[in-house]
């Protein structure tokens, strides 16, 4: 259906091709997953199927890409519109009209389909994607998952034979992601649609893939194979594969279900390892004593943990990094917070989870004073955020927004760092040093790089360094792992763990259950603006089927959250 013949793409102004030697075929009716670290050219490959590369982006494409027998060299994107449907990373930039029904019809109108056919297909697609109740709604009022479904529906109505999706679930909460993936699976199974999709969150999508196309590194040849084959050697892999590799299972399990069937032996070994040392909750604590210690205090520590002396250079005037009392916020009826009470201690890492639109970002924005509370009080280290001048506030609390680019104004990385030092009245070079600490690889990036040209992970590190320059004892991150590959995520997790060890209190709003499991001491679940669960990470996420990480699903009823914990436990018991 989709055929690449020795394709290489060189963008204008680039000295080397972005991708080269791409030679593979996506057979009809299969779902092929394109995986690889960031910057290996996944989006370039996806966009060359619809003809946007090179017709729209410029650059030179060598070789041949054919879709349903049509050569993209001779067919412009608009002439491929009836065979290929493309949904990019950001559904918002995809919408042309303003209501759901019109958006679904737009592609068919352009193709000139007869009105009765259009009408029928719109109704069918509304049903297929579960959008019937939303048909007359303005698109701007929909949630992220709904928008993603509308975007998929809008390219589905012309009945393309192939569907190209670039990270369809990365902005979605676990439940919404499952909704979208269920739709995709239905398309492949029932309609025989061919799907080529790129996604960083393999733990969500891998069980749906028929084949995986792996781009191991930049300019390395692409490899195509069954998921089990590719996962055995891939540099990017989900936790289930990590666990399988560690335990030496062969063939590698790809789903939680497969892994569970194999895991009885591992569970026994883990129970023994844990039993040989200590029983109960201490097991989790012992696996990662530093960070789990706060969630389940070890007897050696003082029972009231906020009496622990924070190790940060500037101890906050209040014992709490942040205090929120009976906070209520009235905005539009869909985005409000209702009587939120929350206390954060220095050194604590809290993951804020919940559906898209549950109020996570609103709560973070309130903590930095962007939204004044309707009632209740908010204090961050003794300051009232919305009444504190920005210059002073950055010493109390820092927020890395969902789009880290919003924080960056300057033309070069060096200028950005200098501006951050000036804003925070810190010693020159502070920001740059922080940046190098956060991301040792950043030294390779020249100082005059435009922040726009950085990779997602580098940009996040830069924004984080800018925020940390003022040394805020409370650090907030909104959806930090969006668009990050596993390597960048691991670096972020390490950086955040170190910051917590230095005494920073960290709050992250995230959909990424694996990240939350790895670094959070405490998890707060929000639903409709209310706290519905608040407790140690191990207890909260394990109790919730949609927020449980893969490892805990595999090893339930034991409470293990990450592969690293399992490794530690087995390793230490092996030594003793």
């Amino acid at each position: 259906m989709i055929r690449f013949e020795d394709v290489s793409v060189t963008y204008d102004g680039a000295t080397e091709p972005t991708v080269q030697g791409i030679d593979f075929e996506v057979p009809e009716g299969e779902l092929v997953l394109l995986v690889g670290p960031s910057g290996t050219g996944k989006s370039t490959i996806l966009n060359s199927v619809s003809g946007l590369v090179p017709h729209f982006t410029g650059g030179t494409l060598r070789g041949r890409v054919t879709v349903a027998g049509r050569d993209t060299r001779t067919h412009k994107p608009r002439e491929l519109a009836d065979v290929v449907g493309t949904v990019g990373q950001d559904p918002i930039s995809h919408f042309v009209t303003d209501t759901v029904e019109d958006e679904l019809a737009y592609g068919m109108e352009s193709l000139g389909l007869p009105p009765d056919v259009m009408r029928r297909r719109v109704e069918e697609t509304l049903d297929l994607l579960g959008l019937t109740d939303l048909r007359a709604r303005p698109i701007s009022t929909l949630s992220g998952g709904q928008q993603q479904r509308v975007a998929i529906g809008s390219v589905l109505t012309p009945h393309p034979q192939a569907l190209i999706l670039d990270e369809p679930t990365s902005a979605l909460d676990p439940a919404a992601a499952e909704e979208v993936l269920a739709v995709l699976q239905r398309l492949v199974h029932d309609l025989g649609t061919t799907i080529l999709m790129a996604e960083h969150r393999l733990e969500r999508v891998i069980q749906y893939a028929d084949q995986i196309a792996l781009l191991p590194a930049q300019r390395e040849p692409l490899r195509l194979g069954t998921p089990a084959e590719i996962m055995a050697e891939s540099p990017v892999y989900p936790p289930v594969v990590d666990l399988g590799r560690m335990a030496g299972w062969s063939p590698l399990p790809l789903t939680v279900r497969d892994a569970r069937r194999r895991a009885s032996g591992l569970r026994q070994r883990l129970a023994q390892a844990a039993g040989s040392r200590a029983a109960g909750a201490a097991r989790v604590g012992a696996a990662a004593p530093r960070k789990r210690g706060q969630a389940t205090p070890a007897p050696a520590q003082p029972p009231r943990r906020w009496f622990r002396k924070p190790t940060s250079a500037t101890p906050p005037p209040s014992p709490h990094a942040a205090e929120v009392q009976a906070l209520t916020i009235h905005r539009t009826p869909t985005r409000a917070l209702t009587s939120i009470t929350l206390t954060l201690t220095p050194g604590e890492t809290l993951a804020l989870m919940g559906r898209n639109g549950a109020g996570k970002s609103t709560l973070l924005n309130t903590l930095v004073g962007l939204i004044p509370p309707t009632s209740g009080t908010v204090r961050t280290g003794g300051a009232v955020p919305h009444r504190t001048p920005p210059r002073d506030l950055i010493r109390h609390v820092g927020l890395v927004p969902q789009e880290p680019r919003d924080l960056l104004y300057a033309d070069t990385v060096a200028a950005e760092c200098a501006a951050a030092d000036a804003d925070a009245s810190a010693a020159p070079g502070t920001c740059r040093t922080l940046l190098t600490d956060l991301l040792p690889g950043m030294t390779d990036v020249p100082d005059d790089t435009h922040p726009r040209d950085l990779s997602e992970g580098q940009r996040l590190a830069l924004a984080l360094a800018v925020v940390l320059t003022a040394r805020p004892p409370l650090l907030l991150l909104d959806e930090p792992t969006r668009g990050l590959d596993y390597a960048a995520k691991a670096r972020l997790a390490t950086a955040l763990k170190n910051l917590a060890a230095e005494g920073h209190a960290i709050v992250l709003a995230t959909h990424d259950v694996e990240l939350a499991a790895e670094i959070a001491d405490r998890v707060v679940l929000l639903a409709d603006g209310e706290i519905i669960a608040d407790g140690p990470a191990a207890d909260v996420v394990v109790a919730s089927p949609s927020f449980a990480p893969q490892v805990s699903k595999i090893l339930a009823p034991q409470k293990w959250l990450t592969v690293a914990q399992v490794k530690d436990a087995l390793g230490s018991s092996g030594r003793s």
Partner: protein
Amino acid sequence: MVDASARSCGQSCRRAARVGATAPRRRGQAKPTPAQHQPRPTTLHPGAWWLWSLSLGIAATRTTNPLLLTLLIVTSAYVVAARRPHTPWARSYSAFVKLALAVLLIRLTFAVTLGSPLPGTHTLVTLPEVPLPDWAQGIRLGGKVTAETLTFAFYDGLKLATLLICVGAANALASPTRLLKSLPGALYEMGVAVVVALTFAPNLIADVQRLRAARRLRGRPDSGLRGLLQVGLPVLEGALERSVALAAAMDARGYGRTADVPPHVRRTTTTLTLGGLLGVCAGTYGLLTAEGGTYGIPVLLAGVTAALAGLRLGGRRTPRTRYRPDLWGARAWLVTASGAAVAAALAIAAVRDPAALHPTVIPLTAPTFPLYPAAAILLGLLPAFVTPPPEEPS
């Protein structure tokens, strides 16, 4: 093109059948009646709303009587309150009302500070007059403020405000985007460009707000002109990037596909359009000059006809079809007629009874309430009763 679409339809029909088979339960309830243009149940043709609103606006230009103008505002506001859809753009009405108030206030401020040539006798207050040099003769700063001047300015400003509120009503009742959907095929692509430009502004405002918030996170003041200027470049960059992304998405979804038309049709289209436009120019020139009175109107009409024919023929080049086009039904006629009736009644009244519709300022008299024109304005309430109520938000 023709055979391509036929092929895709054949395939699609088979697929459609399969989709139906997979969701038999829900399909039954939403089963479309084939091959019928069903307008959406709760919508009126957007053109009808615009004609109605603009008619009320025209009526407003015929009078300066504050009582009649207030009645016009109340009439349009009632219809908007009763019939505006639950959509974000329907909220633009309040923005228009604020704009109208601002216009009124500015008009009054000018009347107070700049004075007015009106020979008023009821002096309310005397402001210190700023002496101006000789070359600025005829302009006065400060000085006497008379009740007559203020009243005149108020009447005048209110007229303008009413006009603005009527345009706001049109915007709230039917977004311009929906109106553009009714453009002829040849103009469609231009229409989309206009729509994209229209969404540019709201997106730009959202960007500015987001980036000013981000400034606060950097520890810089988030208000003031400097803050606004510093986010200018990133905002424009973002807007540009979004436009490019949208253009790519539109292209990938088939925007701008053209059908092959025989060369003679293409040539005829060009000839008709160009010739028509020339005719329109010549006809207008004829109408405006004294000696061209005889040929002006016929040439203008011929030009318009040729241009329209060219447009219609040009539509053949775009294979676009329309999904559930808005139909111009009996309700649309009623709504348009009610607006037109108001405009006509006030136009006639302005000729028949100028004293009532233009209350005199000198000497200062209380405006009377002319009964018949007022009754005619109430005809404008008709749409609130004949059109279906908006859908409740789900």
